[in-house]
């Protein structure tokens, strides 16, 4: 027993029940039936996390018991909890029925079923909620006959409970129960309740139905889906409460994908697409945003012609939406459309949309589009990028907001990884190095940060011949911040350079900076000198070309934090 690990274990401290949490974990390691009594009392505390952990531990212990021990030791514990005075013990009991049921005798099984029935109609909503949330799990271990005779009536009762919070948990149970029953029984035993839930007065219950729609679809099978779920889904897409519409909109792609193949296209075109068209101009931005994140996926399902005729106008409309999140969601999912119709169809509208997002007043919107840029560049191809997007990427480097400049630098690095060092040399590097002469010191520093990020991807040649001279020149900069970042850069790009450059050019400059008047410049120069000394040593030791050990390079990178 790891006694020392009981950090909250001092019972003298009136610290509250959070201190019981580590103990519950501790006891889990013991796995002894003598451990059950403390777990039993832990299962009655009011702190939910402690109760849950105690129940989890008890469930694990139950697996270790033999069937005899289950009946002698474990089931009485469950009975006691289930008949406890406080509702906390009764809620915990709900989590223990399913683990002991399978391996006990049939008389005990009957008792357990009885207890569960009682808890499903308990006075307090908390217990009914716990029972409802465990209904599916319990049904899984029951025999089919009992599912039909017991569980269904409990399920319908909980699904009509007066408390909203209980009814919405019954929706989840519906999925498990539907999976367990044979198809022919679903229509009579489950569907009436499900239909009721989809039209429940409380939007929260309808929301749950929308949220679980894909699981429900799989559970009920294609016939019922066609007859019942399609109209239900339509209603959810047109629901009066925006939260429900948004939840349903999120499921459009998945729902359509899982429709039976034979009439999938017809169902979508006749029933789903009209609703989707309405949603594109929904008043609520979250609904539109949810739709935008999945609507592109429909193009793979519907094929080229339908996409061009029906979906393309929707994409374009959302691309011009006033809400930036909607536009971003469209842009981030272009790959599906690319597969089906090619990006060129969209690119005319795409470009203005990207530019508008890239210049949005809110920096977080600008940040989001930068993060999609490597993905877009990959999809659109290098020519398109060079033509239209290159200027944007450069403009971001001199944005007013630091987070944007930082993201833009990282973006450049990813683009170089995608398009290669040669492309970098022709298109990016000259512009980046040009910034070194900018009158604004922040832009000059950005040059250094870009060099830090790009040196590795660009390779030794470009770094030594083009980048290094610029860095060294900046060591004479008027602004101390620039100078100490020069030191940091030299440390960062050191491993990429060859030993001659290091010895002849880098070392003298660092030594000069080490005598600088500014404290920080001196400090970072010293750091760089010690770091490069290690590199020198390695070079000296290995007469072969200075291809450094990958681990060592990683260590160097970790030491040299490029951004201050």
């Amino acid at each position: 027993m790891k006694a020392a690990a009981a950090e909250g274990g001092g019972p003298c401290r009136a610290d509250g029940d959070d201190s019981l949490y580590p103990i519950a974990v501790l006891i889990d390691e013991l796995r002894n039936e003598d451990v059950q009594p403390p777990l039993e009392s832990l299962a009655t505390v009011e702190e939910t996390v402690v109760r849950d952990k105690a129940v989890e531990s008890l469930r694990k212990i139950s697996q270790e018991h033999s069937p005899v021990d289950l009946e002698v030791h474990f089931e009485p514990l469950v009975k006691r909890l289930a008949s406890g005075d406080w509702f906390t013990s009764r809620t915990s009991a709900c989590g223990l029925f399913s683990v002991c049921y399978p391996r006990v005798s049939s008389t005990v099984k009957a008792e357990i079923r009885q207890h569960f029935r009682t808890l499903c109609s308990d006075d307090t909503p908390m217990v009914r909620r716990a029972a409802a949330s465990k209904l599916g799990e319990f049904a899984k271990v029951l025999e089919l006959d009992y599912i039909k005779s017991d569980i269904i009536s409990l399920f319908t009762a909980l699904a009509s409970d007066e408390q909203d919070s209980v009814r919405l948990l019954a929706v989840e149970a519906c999925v498990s129960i539907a999976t367990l029953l044979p198809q022919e029984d679903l229509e009579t035993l489950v569907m009436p309740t499900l239909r009721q839930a989809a039209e429940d007065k409380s939007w929260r219950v309808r929301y749950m139905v929308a949220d679980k729609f894909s699981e429900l679809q799989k559970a009920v099978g294609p016939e019922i889906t066609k007859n019942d779920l399609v109209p239900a889904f339509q209603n959810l897409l047109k629901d009066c409460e925006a939260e429900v519409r948004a939840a349903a909109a999120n499921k459009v792609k998945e729902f359509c994908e899982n429709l039976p193949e034979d009439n999938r296209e017809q169902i979508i075109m006749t029933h789903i697409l009209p609703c989707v068209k309405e949603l594109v101009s929904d008043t609520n931005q979250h609904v539109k945003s949810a739709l935008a994140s999945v609507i592109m996926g429909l193009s793979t399902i519907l094929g080229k012609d339908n996409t061009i005729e029906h979906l393309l106008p929707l994409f374009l409309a959302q691309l011009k939406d006033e809400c930036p999140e909607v536009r971003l969601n469209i842009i981030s999912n272009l790959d599906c459309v690319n597969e089906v119709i090619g990006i060129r169809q969209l690119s005319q509208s795409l470009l203005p949309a990207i530019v508008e997002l890239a210049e949005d007043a809110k920096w977080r919107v600008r940040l989001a589009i930068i993060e999609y840029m490597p993905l877009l560049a990959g999809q659109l191809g290098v020519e398109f990028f060079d033509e239209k997007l290159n200027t944007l990427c450069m403009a971001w480097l001199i944005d007013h907001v630091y987070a944007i400049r930082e993201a833009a630098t990282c973006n450049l690095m990813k683009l170089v990884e995608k398009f290669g060092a040669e492309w970098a040399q022709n298109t990016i590097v000259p512009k980046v190095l040009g910034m070194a002469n900018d009158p604004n010191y922040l832009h000059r520093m950005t040059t250094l940060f870009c060099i830090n990020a790009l040196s590795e991807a660009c390779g030794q040649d470009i770094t030594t011949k083009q980048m290094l001279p610029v860095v060294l020149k900046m060591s004479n900069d008027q602004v101390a911040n620039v100078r100490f970042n020069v030191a940091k850069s030299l440390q960062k790009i050191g491993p990429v350079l060859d030993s001659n450059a290091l010895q002849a050019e880098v070392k003298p400059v660092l030594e000069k900076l080490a005598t600088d008047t500014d404290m920080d410049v001196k400090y970072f120069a010293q750091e760089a000198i010690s770091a490069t000394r290690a590199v020198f040593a390695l070079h000296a030791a290995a007469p072969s070309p200075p291809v450094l050990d990958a681990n060592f390079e990683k260590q160097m990178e970790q030491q040299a934090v490029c951004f201050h």
Partner: protein
Amino acid sequence: MGEDTDATPTLNHRGFLPDHNYVTEADIISTVEFNHTGELLATGDKGGRVVIFQREPEGKTEPFSQGEYNVYSTFQSHEPEFDYLKSLEIEEKINKIRWLPQQNAAQFLLSTNDKTIKLWKVSERDKRPEGYNLKDEEGRIKDISTVTSLQVPVLMPMDLMVEVSPRRVFANAHTYHVNSISVNSDFETYMSADDLRINLWHLDITDRSFNIVDIKPTNMEDLTEVITAAEFHPHHCNLFVYSSSKGTLRLCDMREAALCDKHSKLFEEPEDPSARSFFSEIISSVSDVKFSHSGRYLLTRDYLTAKVWDLNMESKPLETYQVHDYLRSKLCSLYENDCIFDKFECAWNGSDSVIMTGAYNNFFRMFDRNTKRDVTLEASRESSKPRAVLKPRRVCAAGGKRRKDDISVDSLDFTKKILHTAWHPTENIIAIAATNNLYIFQDKLNSELH
């Protein structure tokens, strides 16, 4: 009903100097609330403290100590704070306390000041572990060299200790002053209402709440009414009511929409044009709203009246009770000394047959809805000796016939106001907060509710 009321005042648990009429501001009681069984009574004061009283169990040897409330626990719930962004002080005064239904041996209550709501756990400890290996009885670390054998600590009985610990702090959700909190019948969520917004919280989640009502206009210059009180229906988890400064009540159904800005029912009494005056709107502001225990009726209090509404009838109240109509001619001076803005609370008895509310001069009023009789009683040291029967009081309007022992309107003390009252959930026991004193009255002869 009223004539037989027995008075068992609880005195002086606060700093009250008998010689002077000096009251420490911090001791002024700001809220009173019984728990669901009536065994516990909590009071909050302006100094941010909460005092919990517990009822002695019946059947003790002394006959007179049956059912008396004694101090069970005292703790500091809220401290004064300073909002740096707005350069405003946040008072520590407890605005409301609400008990949670009992879930295990411990008790839980929510207490709120203007900005922050806290969940407190009140538990009893009667056992203490003794016989540690590394620590001695006083808690000092033992010298290891003196320990020669190991012992297993055992739990020994000790004097009962009541521990109070904060379990949750629900902060940063209200721009304006919180005036009400109410626990939902699902025992999982509760709401907090400020002047313009109502938020829904989950008892386990403190970093997030949902806004369910927002009456803030886009342009603050268009502001005409504020929320004054809010409460959940006692049985229906989806219904709640909130009252406004314009005298309206709105019943909202959380099932209909996520944001309940549109009410399901609007309860408003049409204004009587003949009674219109400069003060009409001010005195129509509803200061408190309470559902009846049955859930069928609403009780509201505005400045001069208490009204009972039927949930099924929105056009006018079912019953209107005049609390202190003699003040109608004095509204001007009451406006000048700000008393017209006093927020009186109201209460139902357990069977919803009697309603109670406070007034001035330490008077409080009870109205029997069935017999239509009403009584005025006084909560003060002079008029209530322990275990004496309370005498009904009468206020005679200016110029009216004056009987012996009557008080004239002009001699009412407007600094002695009874704003906070509570009625035991099942028995005829009431708690009255008179400035910094708490009075508890019991109806010994008529303990059974009728």
